[in-house]
């Protein structure tokens, strides 16, 4: 399938239009700070050269939108402690290399512990079916992934699965944006909202951002032209002094998102205060299993107890995902910390800001 959204000539014209806008007030004397929430946007912005192109005019900050990066050190330790107990772990591949305070899943695998990497969480049903061992799926993810995790729990209930549970580490986006603006000192002046989270939640949950903070938002796709359209939207909104939630990814994001997916989420999970790396506990920013499904909660089933631990010394992942610092400001970046021997999760995940900066170069 030929993809018209990769079209270079249209992108060039679009960028020329943005260039023109950026010569007009209020843009003339300073750099503007836009935050892309989603890690996949961070990668697109670096990979297609947008960061370089707008250097000195637009500063792109990467936000808390990589599920692995926002998982707290304590939660990573819970995963490791499950593996140490001899429970069979099923996980998305990104988590394997994330260092806990003493070990990583990768190390546990080397020590002979069983870890299955799954692409589709429903594969856990098959794994659990074929073994008598206890299987735990490490449930990280945002709204994009949570309907799939909800389906896993419902199917496990339906088939009377006794040896399968999940470690609930899911997080939700809208309240964390509110938190970023209300509690952390950063200078965000526009948000590029995550395209595939928006596929599920639609436009409405973001409205609080322009309404309360007067900060423009744009929902964007991931192709070069999509990023160009998103930047054009934010720049135009600032230029005419308005702020709204503009949907520039209409081919995938409906006004009301995907209600069937949200019904599934609501059937299985309820809102909870959860811990984010670098931010601590944030009210109503994640999900826990409803009472009816509590037997699928690995934290309860295995009575996991871990100490509260400090994040790795010198690692500034927390500040990176808060939009306060760039990966290059970390003293360990590219020296002690590289994708081959990562110190923090932002260097592990393909879409972590540190890994993206490492791969596509600090520009």
């Amino acid at each position, binding site marked *: 399938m030929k993809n*018209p959204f990769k079209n270079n000539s249209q992108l060039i014209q*679009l960028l*020329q239009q943005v260039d023109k806008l950026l010569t007009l007030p209020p843009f003339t004397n300073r750099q503007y700070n836009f935050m892309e929430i989603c890690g996949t946007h961070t990668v697109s912005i670096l990979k297609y050269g947008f960061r370089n192109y707008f250097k000195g005019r637009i500063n792109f900050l990467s936000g808390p939108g990589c599920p692995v990066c926002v998982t707290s050190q304590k939660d990573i330790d819970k995963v490791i402690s499950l593996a140490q107990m001899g429970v069979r772990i099923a996980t998305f591949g990104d988590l394997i290399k994330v260092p806990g305070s003493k070990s990583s899943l990768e190390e546990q695998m080397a020590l002979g512990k069983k870890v299955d990497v799954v692409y589709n969480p*429903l594969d856990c049903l098959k794994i659990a079916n074929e073994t008598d061992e206890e299987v735990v799926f490490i449930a990280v993810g945002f709204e*994009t992934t949570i309907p799939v995790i909800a389906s896993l729990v419902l199917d496990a209930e339906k088939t009377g699965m006794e040896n399968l549970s999940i470690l609930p580490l899911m997080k939700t986006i809208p309240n964390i944006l509110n938190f970023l603006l209300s509690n952390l000192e950063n200078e965000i002046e526009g948000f590029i909202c995550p395209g595939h989270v928006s596929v599920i939640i639609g436009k409405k949950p973001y409205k609080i951002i322009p309404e309360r903070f007067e900060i423009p938002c744009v929902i964007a796709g991931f192709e070069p032209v999509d990023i160009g359209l998103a930047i054009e939207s934010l720049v135009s909104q600032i230029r005419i002094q308005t702020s709204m939630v503009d949907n520039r990814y209409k081919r995938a994001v409906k006004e009301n998102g995907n209600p069937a*997916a949200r019904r599934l989420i609501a059937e299985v999970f309820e809102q909870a205060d959860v811990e984010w790396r670098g931010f601590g506990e944030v009210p109503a920013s994640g999900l826990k299993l409803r009472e009816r499904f509590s037997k699928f909660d690995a934290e309860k089933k295995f009575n996991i107890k871990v100490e509260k631990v400090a994040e790795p010394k010198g690692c500034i992942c927390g500040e990176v995902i808060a939009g306060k610092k760039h990966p290059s400001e970390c003293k360990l970046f590219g020296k002690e910390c590289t994708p081959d021997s990562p110190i923090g999760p932002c260097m592990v995940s393909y879409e972590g800001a540190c890994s993206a900066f490492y791969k596509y170069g600090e520009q």
Partner: protein
Amino acid sequence: MCLAVPYKIISKKGIKAIADVFGIKKEIDIRILDDVNVNDYVLVHAGFAIQKLDQEEAKTTLDLLREISEESV
């Protein structure tokens, strides 16, 4: 991790469908889409179709792009 890729639906049965991505056929779950038909393009994430890609809207976005670009000429 929230990456989703467009697949084309080849056939469907209950909550499962066979879809084509880059010439490879895969089984996907369509339980969270109300109305999917053969030949539709859907966005697939973690084995689930999470939304139908709207061809009309894709066209409208490209038209919008053309308009914006024309302003700059």
